[in-house]
């Protein structure tokens, strides 16, 4: 079932105009700056990177929650880049978001039952409110909110973080989407609850044949859940390939640094931790370095990477289905 592209992103750019301070000079944030990739039907694709890498904006552009300024997004073979809201509406039920903060993702003024039933009514998929609520109850049971009857008329503030995230998941899945874009779905949850929610997502993914785009800064979560991962840096993919390969044997210096920085839960070995720490922080997306955008922080940068003369490396296959954008051999 895996293979065929459900989402195809080509040369995608999302640039935001900003003003630095009151009356200051105008600048452009290049949040997504030339991304091409595809999400294959049935897979879980991880988008990983630091904050400012553009992973969230890329996810929002796939769902057309943000208007791309260049390039193309295709969903189920159809170009949705410039569709109006009216034409998008019938497609929206096939692609749904899950958000990072479960406390902000539910309307405080709406009951749990209405929140989950509302997409059915908006999309005209239920005959009336009664039917929509009955189906919402069934979906709530499915995500582990049991007994659903006791929750339908409750407000979000009565629920714990883990329960809210289940409700958010139920709302996303009620219209039977093919694609679910989950942006840091467990980052705000307690360590002890994370495994439960991730496990639920994986199980539902299998049962409902979902395709996930999982946006996360946590490489361990990506490694556990994803079939493939794309590593983003300053709005570009620097490495993409099967999760097992990319996260076991990273080739791009940035991926290597990210992996090295993950704290390990293991009894310390003699000699203490020796961890290469990458200097500097993600530069300003209004002033992306010329040449390879990673070169100012890269321990291996050489002439081909820096101006003058240095060029931006493009993704090239390096074996095992991995593509890397790096001048290093």
């Amino acid at each position: 079932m895996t293979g065929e592209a459900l989402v195809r992103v080509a040369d995608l750019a999302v640039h935001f105009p900003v003003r630095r301070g009151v009356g200051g000079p105008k600048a452009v944030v290049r949040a997504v700056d030339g991304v091409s990739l595809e999400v294959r039907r049935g897979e879980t694709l991880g988008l990983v990177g630091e904050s400012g890498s553009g992973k969230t904006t890329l996810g929002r552009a796939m769902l057309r929650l943000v208007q791309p300024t260049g390039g193309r997004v295709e969903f189920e073979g159809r170009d949705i880049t410039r569709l109006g809201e009216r034409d998008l509406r019938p497609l929206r039920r096939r692609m749904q978001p899950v958000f990072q903060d479960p406390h902000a993702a539910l309307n405080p003024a709406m009951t749990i039952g209405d929140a989950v039933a509302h997409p059915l009514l908006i999309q005209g998929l239920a005959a009336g409110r009664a039917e929509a609520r009955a189906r919402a109850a069934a979906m709530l049971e499915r995500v582990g909110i049991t007994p659903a009857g006791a929750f339908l008329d409750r407000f979000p503030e009565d629920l714990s973080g883990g329960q809210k995230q289940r409700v958010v998941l139920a709302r996303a899945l009620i219209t039977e989407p093919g694609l679910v874009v989950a942006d840091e779905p467990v980052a705000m949850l307690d360590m002890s609850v994370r495994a439960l929610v991730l496990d639920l997502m994986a199980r539902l993914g299998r049962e409902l044949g979902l395709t996930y785009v999982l946006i996360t800064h946590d490489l361990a979560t990506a490694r556990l859940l994803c079939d493939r991962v794309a590593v983003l840096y300053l709005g570009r993919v620097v490495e993409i390939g099967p999760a097992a390969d990319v996260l076991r044997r990273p080739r791009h210096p940035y991926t290597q640094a990210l992996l090295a920085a993950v704290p390990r839960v293991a009894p310390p070995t003699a000699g203490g931790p020796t961890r290469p720490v990458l200097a500097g922080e993600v530069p300003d997306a209004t002033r992306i370095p010329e040449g390879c955008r990673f070169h100012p922080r890269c321990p291996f940068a050489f002439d081909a990477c820096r101006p003058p003369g240095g060029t931006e490396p493009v993704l090239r296959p390096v074996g095992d289905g991995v593509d890397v954008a790096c001048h290093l051999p």
Partner: protein
Amino acid sequence: MSSAHHRRARLAARWRASGRTSRRLLLAGAVITAGFALVALLAPLLAPYGQAAHDAPQLARPSWSHWFGTTNLRFDVLSRVIFGARLAFEVVLASTAFALVIGVPLGLVSGYSGGRLDRALVLVMDALYAFPSLLLAIVAAFALARWVGPGVPAAALSISVIYVPQYFRVVRNHTLAVREEAFVDAARAMGAPKRVIIVRYVAANVLQSVPVIFTVNAADAVLTLAALGFLGYGVPLRTAEWGFDIGNAISDVGTGAWWTSLFPGLAIVGLVTGMSLLGEGVNDVLNPRLRAAGLASDVTIPLVDPEAASLPEPAEDGPGVPEGAEQELPRSVRAVPGISAGIVPDSGMIPAQNEPALAVESLSVTYRSPRGPVRAVDGVSLAVAAGESVGLVGESGCGKSTLGRAVLGILPAVAERSGRVLLDGVDLTADADAWRRARGDRLSLVFQDPATRLDPLQRVESHFVELIRAHRPGTSKADAARQAREVLAAVGVPPGRARHYPHEFSGGMRQRIMIALAVVLEPRVLVADEPTTSLDVLVEAQILDLLGDLRRRLGLAVVLITHNLGIVAETCDRVAVMYAGRIVEEGPIASVFAAPRHPYTQALLGAVITLETEAAVAVPGAPPDLAGPLPGCPFAPRCPLAMGICHDVRPGPTPVGRAHTAACHLYPGADPTHPAQAWEPTGRRLRLTEAPRAGTLR
């Protein structure tokens, strides 16, 4: 149960949670306002004479036939006051209705759509708002009196002109905030049309603040109406209106006729007071956060304790530090009290050998709450030596942050503390002044979110200068600024940026600044509460390395509060696992992570997702309610190995290894073949229960 039922339950809970004083004020306001409303409603029945009847004797004193006397225009004052209440309510309700009908939709559309329409509307509304409100009302009243003729509609409209911009501004600003919420994105993602989003997702939340503005504005509207009447604008002569009647009575004061102005005046004071109390009360109950801001767990701790600043500080010459030692660090950071010289400067005491820098003894913290006392920290004892780093871990709500605050002595007012906190052997709980002086100086704190802890209006350097001069009054500004640059350089902030403002730094840089602030006065003990949780993994690694570096060089005793077991494993010497306000396991990192003994620690480690994890196992169930009694072991209800004794007898710390204790009835003398002994750090994990108890109500 219906949603209305839950809505009522929520209101009832807020009512119970609100303070007794605010409840009393609200009730008093409601009674007064309701009294006036009743009088207004029944005016024709209550008033002895008509409001327009002017056939009474002129300026008669109060008597049996005219209780409040009569006016020079031969009106009965009592009747005028009663009918005046009716007019006040009519005008207040009508003007508010106008203001709501115009201001709220405009605010919603303007805030949600943004763009040119928004800019134009904001300009118009700001112009109206900037205009003196009474003058605006007079101009409007004057124009409307000509256009629609004098009367209640004209008066109401002219007053509503003042309130339209207010409703607009409040609703628009609230809309701007709500528009960015994830649930609005969710509505867009489900394909909801703009109209539906505005009504069901934005307005439904924004309008919750309208009753509050209404009750606050109503009192103001009564005053504005009176002011208009007093100046002769507003309503026609024969209509009873308090302000107008007072205006007419001005000349009577000279003749000794006090009654014509006193009674309408008292009526205004009474109604305005009643409405104001009601407004304040409603505000308190509906928005408890505003009221509880000072008590909430997220209290902002001033970097400089205002009281500490005024306290005399013994001049500190500092112990002799060998010159040339620790070249990389600034002088201010180099002197390590108790390590390099073996002397604690402030107390003048020589710490006994092996005296921990920080000792917590039988510490308990109880929060008062509407549901009864909540035991957030329950008899915790912990010692941290100089140069040692202890990780404090556990699920949220286990009491680790409360413990950190208790150590600093910055618990909110609703907390009660018992037990002792010792800094170099000196009991701080016995001496509030010593505690205050130590805070920010020998005892310092780094928070999770650096952005909210720095004053956006102050240059970075000024934060340091203020802190240093507060605790070391003799220091000159130039010296303090120099120290600031030195310590900033030591944590990797270019000294050239010392005069920048906090917003000009990235999150990682701001956390470095916070750490520099925490160590500039050479603390003995540093409490770091989730110092890297809001940071990216690469920056996190840098900050943790920095903390470790400072700890080794300065001999800092570090308490690292975090939910991230990986960070503890990599950066701490010892770990204390907290559950339900108690330390359930404590020991050296190597021992606890390799051979955790408490079933809770085992479950917690099993839930961690690492790069090696093949299948993570969540900890089933939820932590217990700390408001109830907790006999026995608090983990027993979730523990797969719980025995009879666990539910009745509270386990005490039992040695389970070298310097390693666990508070669990399985020890000592547990069967070596018992499943709790069979922990393996990788590979097979102890599976607690098969089916998680998901979806149970809190």
